[in-house]
């Protein structure tokens, strides 16, 4: 009978801090939504709300006047709408990586950040979806993108990567929501069982869909959860690959590159982990209860993933340069030189600085433990990844083949308005999530706790209550 943690092999890499019991894990996490929220919650939610309203107004103005309020033109017809779309989708990818790929790889450290990261995915994909929808100019006929029989007797062009994008992103959003909700159901049941108010009990009861912790239900839940992870893994890789095909299938210099799919996926994971850090570091301060579960080790792991994926992305930049030179094509070669010294040179060097140089600080274990520096690095990486998309979209388009067709692109106030509006909307959603839903996956954390510290070796006691001796087990009970 033990009450304290006794597992030396785990000590070097604690995934939990403090003296835990099943009850404490449950209490700490499910009490966050019902606790009094810090003042900072109100302030941040208020800021997010203002941003969300600004977004709404930007969209009303856009629909009323048309996409002419943006800085897009010929030759740069894609501008902010596509830059921001790719940026947001990329951010979403880290959530799926954490929830699905790390689950398949049996990485125990994912358990305490998956719920949070998946929420981030869903909200980021919502923000992303706004841009192409309104970039069509006529969002009220967006149903034309789906194969719905209509009076035009026309079908979507299934051979176009833009149509693949519609399928990829909408499938990605749907599957992410299902996966997230699937993991959430047992925890909503906990919220229901622990609810103090009738309203909370009723609402959580409805959304828990009658979950009753039955062993047979858990078995099916685990099967489905693992299968959803298995489906999400190729899905997430397909989404950013297809996004990259929007570019790579064209013949525009700098876009027609075979490295685009893997390079886009690595960049997505890189930027997504940066965003997870940007969110997790302040949330840990705002809700100190999270510190026992999102430990400095988790932060260290995320920083390492950022460093690794950062190098893949940087390898992509080197490949692009090599490809430009090796193609022997004067347009491709011109593009590389134009990136270095052209009119948008500042954006290119900002990208190299933010994504290539700054992340190298993460080699130092001291920096990986310094939350302030990490937070700043994560913001810089977010900005760097935004510049990457700017470089890809604008630099290739503004100088393509004929000098007579060259142009320049300057974003207008409306572009910035809409972009900042989506950031506000994202912040609002994240804080609403923290307010109403358990931020960490309680059941999965308890399962992990059981596996790590109270395996099948008979040291099952978590409470002071001594279990009564039972008859010897038929085989290998291990008492």
């Amino acid at each position: 009978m033990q009450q304290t943690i006794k597992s030396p092999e785990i000590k070097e890499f604690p995934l939990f801090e403090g003296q835990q019991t099943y009850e404490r894990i449950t209490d700490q996490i499910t009490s966050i939504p019902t606790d009094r929220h810090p003042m900072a919650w109100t302030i941040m939610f208020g800021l997010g709300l203002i941003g969300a309203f600004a977004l709404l107004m930007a969209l009303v103005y856009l629909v009323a006047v048309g996409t002419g309020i943006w800085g897009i033109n010929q030759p740069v017809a894609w501008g902010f709408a596509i830059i921001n779309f790719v940026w947001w989708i990329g951010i979403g990818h880290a959530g799926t990586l954490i929830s699905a790929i790390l689950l398949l790889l049996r990485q125990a450290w994912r358990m305490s950040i998956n719920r949070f990261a998946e929420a981030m995915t869903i909200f980021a994909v919502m923000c992303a979806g706004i841009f192409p929808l309104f970039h069509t100019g006529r969002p009220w006929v967006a149903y034309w993108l789906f194969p719905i029989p209509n009076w035009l007797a026309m079908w979507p062009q299934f051979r176009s990567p833009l149509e693949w994008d519609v399928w990829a992103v909408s499938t990605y959003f749907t599957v992410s929501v299902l996966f997230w909700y699937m993991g959430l159901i047992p925890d909503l049941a906990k919220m229901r069982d622990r609810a103090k108010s009738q309203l909370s009990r009723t609402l959580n009861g409805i959304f828990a869909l009658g979950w009753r912790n039955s062993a047979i239900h858990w078995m099916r839940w685990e099967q489905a959860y693992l299968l959803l992870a298995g489906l999400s893994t190729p899905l997430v890789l397909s989404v950013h690959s297809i996004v990259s095909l929007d570019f790579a299938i064209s013949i525009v210099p700098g876009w027609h590159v075979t490295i685009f799919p893997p390079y886009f996926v690595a960049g997505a994971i890189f930027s997504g982990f940066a965003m997870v850090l940007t969110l997790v570091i302040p949330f840990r301060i705002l809700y100190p209860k999270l510190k026992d579960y999102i430990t400095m080790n988790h932060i260290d792991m995320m920083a390492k993933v950022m460093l690794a994926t950062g190098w893949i992305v940087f390898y992509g930049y080197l490949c692009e340069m090599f490809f430009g030179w090796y193609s022997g094509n004067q347009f491709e070669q011109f593009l590389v030189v134009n990136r270095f010294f052209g009119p948008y040179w500042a954006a290119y060097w900002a990208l190299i600085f933010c994504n290539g140089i700054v992340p190298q600080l993460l080699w130092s274990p001291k920096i990986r433990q310094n939350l302030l520096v990490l937070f700043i690095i994560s913001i810089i990486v977010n900005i760097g990844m935004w510049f990457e998309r700017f470089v890809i979209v604008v630099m290739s388009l503004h100088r393509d083949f004929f000098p007579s067709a060259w142009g320049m692109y300057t974003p207008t106030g409306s572009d910035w308005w809409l972009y900042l509006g989506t950031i506000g909307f994202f912040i609002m959603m994240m804080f609403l999530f923290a307010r109403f839903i358990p931020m960490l996956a309680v059941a999965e954390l308890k399962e992990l706790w059981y596996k790590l510290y109270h395996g099948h070796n008979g040291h099952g006691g978590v409470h002071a209550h001594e279990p009564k001796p039972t008859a010897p087990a038929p085989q290998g009970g291990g008492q």
Partner: protein
Amino acid sequence: MAHGTTEPKLYGLMAEFETPDQLLEAARRTRDAGYKKFDCYTPFPIHGLTAAMGVKEAKVPWTVFTMGLLGAIGAFSLQVWTSMVDYPLNVAGRDLLSWPYFIPITFEGMVLAAAFGAFFGTHIYNRMLTYYHPVFNVPQFARASTDRFFVCIESKDPKFNRDEAYRFLQSLNPISISEVPE
């Protein structure tokens, strides 16, 4: 603990345990005692619990597989039918059946249908999407989502006899035994 002899109908008898290992042991012994209609309740999935209960099924994986297959076939045939039969577009004599271009959407259709199969399959087999269940009538059961482990022998079991089941559950050394009214 067992009051309510006037209760019209009994759903089952429920025993409460403190640790996952006790639950595993109890599940194994309930199965060995010959009970068929019983279930365990635990705040988190315990590896080996369904094996101890003698439950084995793969309905969810098969549903996911079937749905995925149907999704892929559906998405692929939709594209072939629209571009070959319903609205063939002759672009410089290019092949109408340009199947490599149909692969991305076929893949997405497969994933979408399979994910719906996983989500709805689980909940339909679990008889969920309900607000009420008899087990919620037991006051201690609120802790099933926190830190308590339960075994419930249901009255549907052909071998079920209230007093025998009670004595059997007592032999498992639980912290409490409750009647579950329907």
